[in-house]
């Protein structure tokens, strides 16, 4: 009653919507990089949006189904998924039988998610199934998957049911600038630095992972001190070390840090950070706090509308 991993891909971990309540003792939230895709995958399977799925970055897994019947779907970045060599459409459910081979392969984007009906039979750590590899917490033995692992399934035999399709995914808006609120330390930077951040493109470096995304572009100049006495970090904040090259902090980040933070990506755009890839160009646009809240509501309404569009495949 498991999924036997033949090839683990590049960095495949179990993630849910994150671990809440332990940042005060240094435990970051972890959780899906692209929470929207995880939520939609679970919604397609008719289950709680926060159930844990398998997150795969850049290259996905190859696995053999070792349970009677598996219902699953693949969401997030487009891939080249196949079941026994037959191409699988994204944004819909599929059913596999014991012995079939599921191969995700190359992922054209950041993160892709394999959601399974009933979820995985794993034990939550500090209230979450999310994997935090640095401290070996949660997920599958606290680490990324390896060849030979057997991911235990909660449901040995998914009940027979019609497959379901999501005809209207939430639009990806890949070309739109990432919206930020300036701060919390915007005044520690020169006015020129703020202008530069909001007008120039920044390239995603190869140093981009679940901890942070290092960007390369015109340096952002500090007005005075280049360091602060450490304070709390949150996901999506953009810290700027002395060299002026910004770093966007991601869910496995440190909970506190000593570099000033020039801006913070708004909550409604955080899921888009899960789909950036090295070499791509990012642009940033400042919005007012009230506007960020309006956008957050708009995204939730778009998600609700998208979920309402889910239908059985005749």
């Amino acid at each position, binding site marked *: 009653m498991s999924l036997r991993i033949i090839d683990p891909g590049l960095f495949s971990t179990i993630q849910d919507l994150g671990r809440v309540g332990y940042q005060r003792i240094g435990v970051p939230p972890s959780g899906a990089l692209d929470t929207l895709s995880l939520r939609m995958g679970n919604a397609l399977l008719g289950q709680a949006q926060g159930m844990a799925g398998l997150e795969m970055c850049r290259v996905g897994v190859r696995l053999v189904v070792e349970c009677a019947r598996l219902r699953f779907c693949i969401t997030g970045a487009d891939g080249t998924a196949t079941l026994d060599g037959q191409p699988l459409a994204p944004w819909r459910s599929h059913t596999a039988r014991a012995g079939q081979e599921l191969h995700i392969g190359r992922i054209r984007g950041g993160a892709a998610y394999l959601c399974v009906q009933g979820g995985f039979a794993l034990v939550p750590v500090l209230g979450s199934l999310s994997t935090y590899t640095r401290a070996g917490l949660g997920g599958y033995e606290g680490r990324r998957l390896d060849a030979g692992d057997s991911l235990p399934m909660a449901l040995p035999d998914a009940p027979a049911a019609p497959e379901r399709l999501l005809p209207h995914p939430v639009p990806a808006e890949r070309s739109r600038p990432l919206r930020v609120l300036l*701060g919390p330390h915007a005044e520690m930077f020169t006015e020129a630095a703020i202008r530069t951040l909001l007008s120039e493109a920044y390239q995603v470096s190869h140093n981009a992972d679940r901890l942070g995304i290092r960007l390369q572009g015109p340096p952002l100049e500090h007005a005075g001190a280049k360091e602060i006495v450490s304070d709390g970090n949150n996901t999506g904040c953009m810290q700027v070390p002395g060299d002026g090259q910004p770093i966007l902090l991601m869910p496995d980040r440190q909970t506190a840090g000593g570099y000033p933070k020039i801006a913070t990506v708004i909550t409604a755009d955080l899921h888009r950070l899960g789909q950036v890839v090295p070499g791509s160009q990012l642009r940033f646009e400042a919005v007012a706090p009230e506007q960020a809240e309006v956008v957050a509501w708009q995204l939730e309404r778009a998600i609700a509308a998208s979920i309402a569009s889910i239908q059985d495949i005749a």
Partner: protein
Amino acid sequence: MRLRQAGDGAMLAEFSDRLDPRAVADVRALDVALNAAAPDGLIETMPSLRSLLVLHDPLRLSARRLRALLESLAENLADTTIIGRQWLIPVCYEEEFALDLAEVAASKGMSMEEVVRRHIGATYTAIAVGSFPGLPYLGGLDPALVLPRRVPPRILVPAGTVAIALEMSNIYPQATPGGWNILGRSPVPLFNPGWEAPSLLSPGDIVRHRAMPRAEYDALLAGFGDGTLLPHEVCRA
């Protein structure tokens, strides 16, 4: 108190721009008051050295309402002095572990023995726990040992590393990047999700160090590793 909005899902309540015992007390008091008020949409709070980071769901608790709540709570902060537990944490300062001891001694014009003597001689208070799981920021470093972080930081320091920077000492619970100046290593585990309190140390705890030889380090490391020793018993002062 200065409120800094950190995106639409977080607010940073800052009480000082430097290390300051008054700010530590205020951060703690606001943390207690806010969690007691428990407004709908509060996700979690993270106290650090001089500020409280408040994470909230903007769909349920707007920044405007959170700001007003924090401002009203800050007008009436209670005195929340806490009496921490006392710990004696052994450290091995031998050369193999003390990667920066010679450099620190040279930069301070002291012998290595004197650096160690001063590091052991201080009584530390855990100001905050954070950055990495269970990592304590220990205030109370001997003023003669104050020095900046290393630039650039090391990409990986071993678990148990004991290091100093600014006016603090710390212990790295896991192998992580680290920019502090390394004086030694401790075998004491500081974090375990299976413990009732996963972090051994809490803000307010009092910590002293003692020097130990390599043989004792190895014995303790083995004992903690196989579970025959518990830090809660070995290190209670």
